[in-house]
């Protein structure tokens, strides 16, 4: 193509020169333009969260122009005549006004709410992607921790946001929040009184939640997202195992112009989808719930989806409470509040370091794992999903009871058993599936792909033709890396002395964990490339890839 097309127009050249004269940017900007973005559908999940956050900032700023964060009572005489003459807070009144008296106000409210739900869906999906592909491994542990903090902040931000309109449903949510705060040992009562400015409900909570919702938490989220992106930029992206991808390079399309165009397309798609949802799928119709009064409640009060796990944890819990020395330890509130999310968040934060400890792997990793090639990690991830899922479903136990005509208490009892059984079962089933898939990979590597053409040999035997894997396929299928064994307690050196690191309780625990991580399927040595050469007659090969395991516990 001619040089005509790649000339900078003089006007743009002038502006660019003016800027560069002052900031010395040409070199750095060139690096930025050539930043490589590897291409994989799952790499777009985090981007959904990013764009949702941008949309949240845009719509939220608009809403703040009209919302009045005040609990002062007013008598309503607005457009929604069904509530005419009712006393309500200014917060609720201004929410009604946004919905009925401001053009586009209802649309902005509903986009904001849908975007918040999508933001958290995307964060969780992105987090699962990073977990299952092992993208959190060295050197990306810090970004993993930032991501988990963002999830936590996002949940809190959402809870405070939907509590602001002061409608009946959100008031019930705040009541529960206050009850949970009160249950915290020693400081709980004080926390509740300080946050609410005295007894529940008071009038202080709405302006306080408002400033937390529009300034404090969004500021933190913005700062952490910036750090998240800078770290990603600095450390460069991970990439999927593919031909040409190594630990020493990163292959993909450059930022300019590809990622600019793709990012633009993706942003408009997400924004458009949210607008369509907000237009046709009603969300949080606060005018139907009415203003908050402390003694009203509706059945099937459900929080937003990301709070469902806390709701389910509260519902699944049996009535446990300890009274001692004039104090009350209300386990039926404390355990649901702290334990499930504590397990998930603390577990997720510690996992990269646990994995390093158990595998002894201190290497940098830039090529992602296929989930099947890390059976323990994948099993634990699926178990965590099952744990979350059971609690989440239990949060809607009344809806299930109603729709499925199952007694409510039966559902709760099922959940009380399932919360222990299903995650454990999920771990073992997932691990087995992973090893099965590894076995399939080993077979592909050694025998090639069956191509569906069947021959009959002169002796009557039927054989199916196969072809060897292509280079591209081999790069993916053969990407497995097995961690190295660390010293086991049973292993003695030449003098009959066990390795020092394997001694003691920690050493033994590490040995057990290490054995679990080592479990893998051998790639049928000796059958490497051979079969493709004989017209692919990989026939009647009964041999199966052997399962090796340091553990006596075989499947």
């Amino acid at each position, binding site marked *: 193509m001619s040089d005509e097309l790649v000339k900078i127009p003089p006007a743009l050249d002038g502006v660019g020169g003016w800027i560069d004269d002052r900031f010395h940017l040409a070199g750095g900007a060139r690096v930025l333009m050539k930043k490589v973005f590897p291409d994989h559908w799952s790499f777009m999940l985090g981007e959904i969260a990013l764009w949702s956050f941008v949309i949240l900032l845009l719509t939220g700023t608009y809403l703040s122009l009209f919302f009045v964060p005040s609990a002062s009572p007013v008598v309503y005489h607005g457009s929604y005549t069904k509530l005419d003459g009712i006393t309500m807070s200014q917060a609720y009144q201004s929410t009604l006004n946004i919905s009925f008296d401001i053009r586009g106000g209802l649309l902005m409210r509903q986009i904001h709410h849908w975007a918040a739900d999508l933001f958290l869906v995307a964060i969780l999906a992105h987090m699962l992607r990073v977990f299952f592909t092992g993208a959190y491994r060295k050197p990306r542990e810090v970004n993993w921790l930032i991501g988990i903090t963002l999830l936590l902040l996002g949940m809190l931000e959402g809870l405070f946001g939907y509590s602001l309109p002061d409608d009946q449903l959100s008031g019930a949510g705040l009541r*529960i929040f206050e009850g949970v705060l009160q249950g915290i040992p020693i400081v709980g009562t004080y926390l509740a009184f300080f*946050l609410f400015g005295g007894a529940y409900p008071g009038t202080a909570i709405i302006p306080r939640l408002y400033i937390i919702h529009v300034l404090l938490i969004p500021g933190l989220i913005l700062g952490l997202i910036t750090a998240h992106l800078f770290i990603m930029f600095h450390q460069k992206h991970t990439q999927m195992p593919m031909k*040409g991808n190594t630990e020493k390079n990163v292959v993909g399309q*450059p930022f300019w112009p590809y990622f600019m*165009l793709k990012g633009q397309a993706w942003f408009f798609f997400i924004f458009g989808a949210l607008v369509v949802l907000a237009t046709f799928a009603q969300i949080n119709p606060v005018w139907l719930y009415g203003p908050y009064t402390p003694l009203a409640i509706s059945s099937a009060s459900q929080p937003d989806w990301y709070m469902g796990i806390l709701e389910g944890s509260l519902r699944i819990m049996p009535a446990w409470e300890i009274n001692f020395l004039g104090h009350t330890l209300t386990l039926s509130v404390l355990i649901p509040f702290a334990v499930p999310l504590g397990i998930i968040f603390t577990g997720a934060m510690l996992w990269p370091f646990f994995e390093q400890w158990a595998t002894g792997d201190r290497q940098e990793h830039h090529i992602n794992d296929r989930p099947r090639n890390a059976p323990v990690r994948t099993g634990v991830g699926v178990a965590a999903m099952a744990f979350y899922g059971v609690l989440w479903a239990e949060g809607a136990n009344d809806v299930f009871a109603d729709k499925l005509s199952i007694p409510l208490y039966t559902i709760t009892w099922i959940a009380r058993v399932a919360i222990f059984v299903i995650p454990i079962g999920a771990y073992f089933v997932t691990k087995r599936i992973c090893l099965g898939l590894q076995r399939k990979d080993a077979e592909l590597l050694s025998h090639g792909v069956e191509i569906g053409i069947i021959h009959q040999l002169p002796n009557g035997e039927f054989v199916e033709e196969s072809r060897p894997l292509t280079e591209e396929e081999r790069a993916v299928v053969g990407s497995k890396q097995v961690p190295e064994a660390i010293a086991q307690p049973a292993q003695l050196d030449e003098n009959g002395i066990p390795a020092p690191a394997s001694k003691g309780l920690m050493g033994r625990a590490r040995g057990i964990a290490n054995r679990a991580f080592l479990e893998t399927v051998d790639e049928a040595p000796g059958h490497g490339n051979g079969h493709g050469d004989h017209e692919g007659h990989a026939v009647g090969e009964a041999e199966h890839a052997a399962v090796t395991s340091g553990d006596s516990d075989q499947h």
Partner: protein
Amino acid sequence: MSETHDPSAGNPLEGLAPQHEAEEPSGSRRVIGTPSPTPRAVDTKAPAPDESPDYLPTDPSDPVAAKNAERVAALCFLVAFAAGVCFLIAYIGLEVGPYNSGNSVVAALRSNYALGSSLGVALLALGLGSMIWVRHLTPNIEIEEHRHVLKSEPQDRDAFKKDFATGAAITGITKRPLLRRTMLIATAPLALAPLWLLRDLGPLPGTSLRHTVWKAGTRAVTLGGLRPLTPADMGSPGSLITVIPEGFQDDDDALAKAGVILIKFAPGQLHVPTIFDGKTQLYGMNWTVDNTIVAYSKICTHVGCPVALYEQTTHHILCPCHQSTFDASNGANVVFGPAARALPQLPLGTNAEGFLVALSDFTQPVGPSFWERG
């Protein structure tokens, strides 16, 4: 630094063309999870950092398809333009609220549909056009960037350490412990100051969680009509009425603790005495009226939702939030769910005029458990 990812990719555009399907190994199934057999079009001359990129756009391999894609993308942008104009018109044309003569709810809904669908179409069309542009009109070129070990070179680390230690030595922070320690002490109160400043966020709880506004002689009035009740007003057995202390209908802080449910039983259904302290039944007292009307706190002892659902046949009171279930005929003791304590009972009687009144405040704290409750 260049690396050839595909021997056939002499021209970076070749990888794009659909005719490359022929390169697929014949009769093969694609192995799930592996890339499509279309080779990756990798820039064979990936630019060195100080070299100009030479992956310049060339003419498309299929000019007709490219022209068609261009037309479709342009059409998308025109649709987005039209929808954007519709949005502006809908904003001006469809009035809501006080400026609208008809039904305000219908007007708001109409405006919402018009604004939302036009904005949605505009954004989706913009997205679609951009996507067609990048997928069908931009050559698919990949470049390779090299990674470097993130760890700094040992000499850099050492130099950093040395510079840092030199700086510290210049200040004398290691040599002058007095200075170091007094400076640290100086910051301690300032670090605590923000916590101190938070003290006035709210009053101390004191004993406020132990009391409600009910007093001996306070009449129970209906939540809706503020009507005092006589035992006869309770109607037939099985009815449940939410009542509040008279004179506190506008005090949300009082009501959040003082809401009460009155339940009427048929004679003999109510197991008296009904008074529970936690799970222990207190004998020798009777706080019911005629052994048929009983008053319980409406605030769930779990996390404080108002209990609302009453099942007449079983006499069960259900909290809709987390399904704690209380047996109304038996001191509102917990029969299922996470609540650990019975709903506190309000001592109930009648006054000289025959109206239902409290005989005293609740004798135990209502609502959720808290540390100091005991």
